[in-house]
């Protein structure tokens, strides 16, 4: 079943571009969760070089005004160098900006905006929930016909999904990419990992970045949490490498492999 899907690999930064890309049809490059990791133009050039002969998707995070300033030249360059590229958007403002300024680049609705219900504790309560509620937790907001209609003028033709622990339910919806094996659960700007080893103060601050997400990650275990939580940088993930059997029926035509939690 997976043979029918386009295969992509998600590489978050230029330092990891030496990973073999054989067997992948498309390179996803960039980060969804942190504007401090927006690639430089130099890094984008290196990624585009590596993606020659393959599809290319730039992954963008949610941004403040400062982050948007950093993103603009990267998008300008992408339009110049790969006008057929996709851009995964995780910020309505970025979608609006793309629509106005780079209508050729193809926007894709990212994991932060599709609004799946990912919290793993659903596994502990599912049997006590009404059928309709269980069904609700398998769906996502972006599959609603209203949302699809809303996205149409913006040119959004694809959504990015996580491989939910409780399973997926899609009756309709735009063509979808499925990320695996790491599903994101939550994210923050109060990056816990940043300087966690010499932190003298509370986490309640948006600290200057030391890029510790590149050298440090954590596993969190609790008997009250059905799976391990992986904390990398500012984001928490779960691990799920069991792909659904019915990818085509779910409207999934692309698999996005994450060799590691994508930060």
């Amino acid at each position: 079943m997976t043979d029918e899907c386009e295969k992509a690999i998600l590489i978050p930064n230029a330092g990891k571009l030496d990973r073999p890309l054989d067997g992948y049809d498309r390179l996803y490059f960039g980060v969804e969760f942190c504007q401090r990791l927006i690639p430089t133009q130099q890094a984008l050039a290196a990624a585009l070089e590596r993606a020659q002969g393959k599809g290319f998707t730039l992954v963008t995070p949610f941004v403040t005004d400062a982050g948007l300033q950093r993103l603009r030249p990267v998008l300008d360059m992408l339009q110049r160098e790969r006008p057929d590229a996709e851009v995964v958007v995780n910020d309505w403002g970025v979608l609006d900006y793309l629509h106005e300024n780079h209508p050729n680049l193809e926007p894709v609705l990212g994991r932060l905006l599709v609004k799946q219900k990912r919290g793993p504790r659903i596994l502990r309560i599912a049997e006590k929930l009404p059928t309709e509620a269980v069904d609700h937790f398998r769906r996502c907001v972006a599959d609603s016909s209203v949302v699809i209609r809303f996205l149409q003028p913006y040119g959004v033709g694809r959504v990015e999904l996580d491989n939910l622990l409780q399973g997926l339910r899609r009756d309709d919806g735009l063509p979808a990419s499925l990320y695996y094996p790491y599903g994101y659960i939550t994210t923050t700007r109060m990056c816990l990992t940043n300087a966690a080893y010499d932190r003298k103060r509370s986490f309640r601050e948006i600290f200057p970045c030391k890029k510790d997400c590149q050298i440090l990650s954590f596993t969190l275990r609790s008997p009250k949490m059905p799976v391990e939580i992986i904390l990398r940088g500012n984001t928490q993930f779960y691990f799920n490498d069991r792909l659904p059997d019915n990818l085509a029926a779910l409207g999934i035509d692309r698999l996005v492999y994450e060799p590691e939690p994508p930060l």
Partner: protein
Amino acid sequence: MSKPRVEILCPVNSPAEVEAVIRQGATELYCGVLRRSWKGKYSNVASPNRREWTSSNMQSYDELREAVRIAHGLGVRVFLAMNGLYTEPQYPMVRREVEDGVACGVDALIIADIGLLAMMREWAPGVEFHISTGGTTFNSMTARFYKRLGAARIVLPRHLRVDEMISLARRNPAIVFEAFILNRGCKNIDGFCTFQHGVNEIRMGPLYRIPKKLNLDLRLLQFLRALPERCARPLASALVSGADGACFLDYEVSAESERLTRRQCTEAERFIKSCFSVLTGIDTCGVCQLKALVEGGITHFKIVGRENVTDKKLRDVRFLVEALRRLDETQDAFRRTVRATYRRIYGVPCRNLCYFT
């Protein structure tokens, strides 16, 4: 230049507390409704708004109608939180919730779902709506995006710095921004967090409602705060309130790094463990930044905690009213005054759990 009018938005979960919080100084109210028909189908965990506990919400639109009647009689507007994230099969019920809320006379809806936003013109033409913090407005383009869709107000995320909020307000003078000012400072970004709340209400059934309804859980937290952290954390995690949020669990933490020493990893593990404690999440506050925010153009402030008992809400409103009277002081003097006021009103010193930096 005349001083801007500053609004204090107070939560209510019952018509019984409406008059009291208004007399104390609340200038706007907000609330949610979780009625039996919704709960029976989708449970409290998939509540129609971002408060998943039954005790956070009114139980019927009759209660809402009564709350609106009292508030309007005192000249105060009421906003209905409809800031859940909805899937296709829910739409008929969502529409009914919206129409019933509007029929009760609410003055605005608070929305996060892009689908509901798109349907507002059809389902509730002419009704004012605000973008919830769940709308994740971190930049001017997003603010403009929502403004063009008809939003009258945007609630900012807690995860913006004060300078970033002020910059947003200055760059977008045509948009009304609202900032959180008291209680419940989650470390994660509300609109991007997908952990479920209200799980214990499912697991423990009606028993769970009792401590929540009487606000015993908050009192318990205050007690736990007085204990040494090494005792308080496992205790809090084991008890009802502590176990309800995934962020409050007493995790076993292990660090992995090829570059750090074992000692650094141990330090890091200890730090991360300290971040996941129920003791870090309550009593958060941004009042020391009130002066900077008002001077920067933000004039609408939200108190969080619909589930709190009326006494706590009254103290919160009083705290803000007193702080707002001192905006003419210098920033340092204002901060000192605020901290002294906090101690006087709540009977405990400020714990430096600040929303904003």
